[in-house]
């Protein structure tokens, strides 16, 4: 079983559109949407949900005002400013439980928090594991870890070879959770100064967690000078540039129809994504199985 995780640093470079197409090209795989706080992959794959599980994670402090003596110690000690006027701000509360431990009259209890849902779906491209983090909830990293764990389970049960993981933007907690222990990362960038700046940081995260990376430049013809600079950067860093996908409105047209681009058109974009999958496939074949 081998897992490729698609990241970008900068948002909106085309991760989900490309993963949607990889879903149609790869065989014997399970798909995982690890962008749990703004998941979009389901919009391309028309899934039917076969299993839904609650995601309980973390706790929230709850003050029993009948018991509270209004001594104010909890307010004074809370580092997250989550208690004001003996009321808990559930959004600010990080669930550390400090207040419950120190309350002299035991008026504070910690309540389990329903922070989202985990779904297993069937699509015509194979199984999809996805999730929805509750609005303004924490622990996105833990939910990502559950999505990946479920995807691995499915891969084992159904004897599937690949996990294709659509990652979140950024470099923080959910990205680290999507990346650690993966076989390969595919970094989607665009030829803008922002895209390049963010590629450089996300590549450093991959190195930090020792996951090899491939780069794909999306919308490469928007600024060919910058594309050249990314190519130079990749070769200086010893990172393979796997594909250069042109900008074409047809990608948005396919998205509006709710289908992956390679199914919608056979133009240059689709040709390039097919080449991209071939490269990813070759690299995965050369990589040793992970335990």
């Amino acid at each position, binding site marked *: 079983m081998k897992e490729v995780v698609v990241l970008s*640093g*900068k*948002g*909106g*470079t085309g991760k*989900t559109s490309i993963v949607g197409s990889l879903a149609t090209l790869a065989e014997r795989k399970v798909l995982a949407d690890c*962008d*749990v*706080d*703004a998941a*979009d992959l389901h*919009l391309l794959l028309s899934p039917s949900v076969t299993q839904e599980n609650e995601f309980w994670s973390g706790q929230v402090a709850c003050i029993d005002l009948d018991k509270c003596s209004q001594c104010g110690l909890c307010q004074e*000690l809370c*580092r*997250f400013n989550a208690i004001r006027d003996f009321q808990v701000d559930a*959004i600010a509360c*990080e*669930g*550390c*439980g*400090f207040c419950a*431990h*120190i309350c002299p009259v035991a008026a504070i209890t910690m309540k389990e928090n329903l922070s989202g849902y985990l779904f297993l779906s069937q699509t015509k491209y194979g199984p999809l594991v996805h999730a929805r*983090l509750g*609005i*303004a*909830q*924490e622990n*996105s*990293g833990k939910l990502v870890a559950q999505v990946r764990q479920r995807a691995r389970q499915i891969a084992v049960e159904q004897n599937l070879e690949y996990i294709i993981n659509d990652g*979140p*933007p*950024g*470099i*923080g*907690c*959910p990205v*680290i*959770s999507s990346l650690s222990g993966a076989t390969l990362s595919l970094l989607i960038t*665009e*030829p*803008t*100064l*922002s895209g390049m*700046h*963010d590629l450089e*940081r*996300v590549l*450093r*995260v991959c190195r*930090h*967690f020792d996951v090899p990376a491939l780069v794909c430049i999306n919308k490469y013809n*928007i*600024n060919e000078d*910058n594309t050249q600079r990314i190519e130079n950067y990749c070769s200086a860093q010893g990172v393979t540039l796997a594909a250069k996908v042109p900008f074409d*409105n047809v990608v*948005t047209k396919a*998205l*509006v129809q*709710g289908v992956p681009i390679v199914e919608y058109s056979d133009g240059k974009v689709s040709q390039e994504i097919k080449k991209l999958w071939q490269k990813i496939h070759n690299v995965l074949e050369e990589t040793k199985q992970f335990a």
Partner: protein
Amino acid sequence: MIISIASGKGGTGKTLVAISLALSLKDSHEVTLLDCDVEESNDHIFLKSVVTGSEPINMQVPQVAKGKCIYCGKCARVCAYHAIAVLGDHVLTFPQLCHGCGACSYLCPEKAISEEPRQTGVVEWGHSDGLGFVRGILTVGEAMATPVIRKVKEYANGNSIVIRDVPPGTSCPVVEAIKGSDFCLLVTEPTPFGLNDLALAVETVRKLRILCGVVLNRAGIGDTGVEEYCRRENIPILLTIPLDTEIARLYSRGVALVDGMPQWKDSFYRLFNNIKEIVNERSCGVKW
């Protein structure tokens, strides 16, 4: 007044809007731009900013004094994040899991735990041609963006108009970045992805009881779902930016929209006045 620029979906144009709004207002108002997208901050690329100061951002993590510890295990039991473990006569700490709540050091019966700073990022401040600018940078490999964002917010000049460039998504870093704003502009694009993530972002700002309006970027590229949604939900579309290759090229070169196409300044100025009007109506108790 504090205006946050958020989106749900990444890459819809938050930075473009935040920079252009700040640059359009800076000649007539005192303005501070805060780059709260500390994982991937980009505002500095578009500003010729001068950094005048910086400060490391530290988490307070436990340090156990071996001579004092009696291995009672209290710290491990109270830590909600499993950042400290006691195995026989060994205490292990996992600083990257620590949220810095301080429970372990406070509750240790032997007072064997002190707190040590551990750097997770840096905040920089300066200016760009009259515009105040603050930027947070999360260290590569670090997971927790929220403490860095919290620090960036502290450096805002309270007397100025504050514009916060928010990270994508809807989880804790976004909540921290928009908390305390008077208004949240949600930048989206007219596609099914843009719509799906806009709806999540709207739920988030409503949960925080913050007023919002929409900027529709790359108008003309997809479908009419976003406009229909905004009508249904009674959310004003305050600015529409068309799909234009010239705008995309300027962005790719790191040139602010209002620098490359100064005719846009008026639109951003009007956008600000519309926001001001909405915020004032609310504070006068007029139902919006």
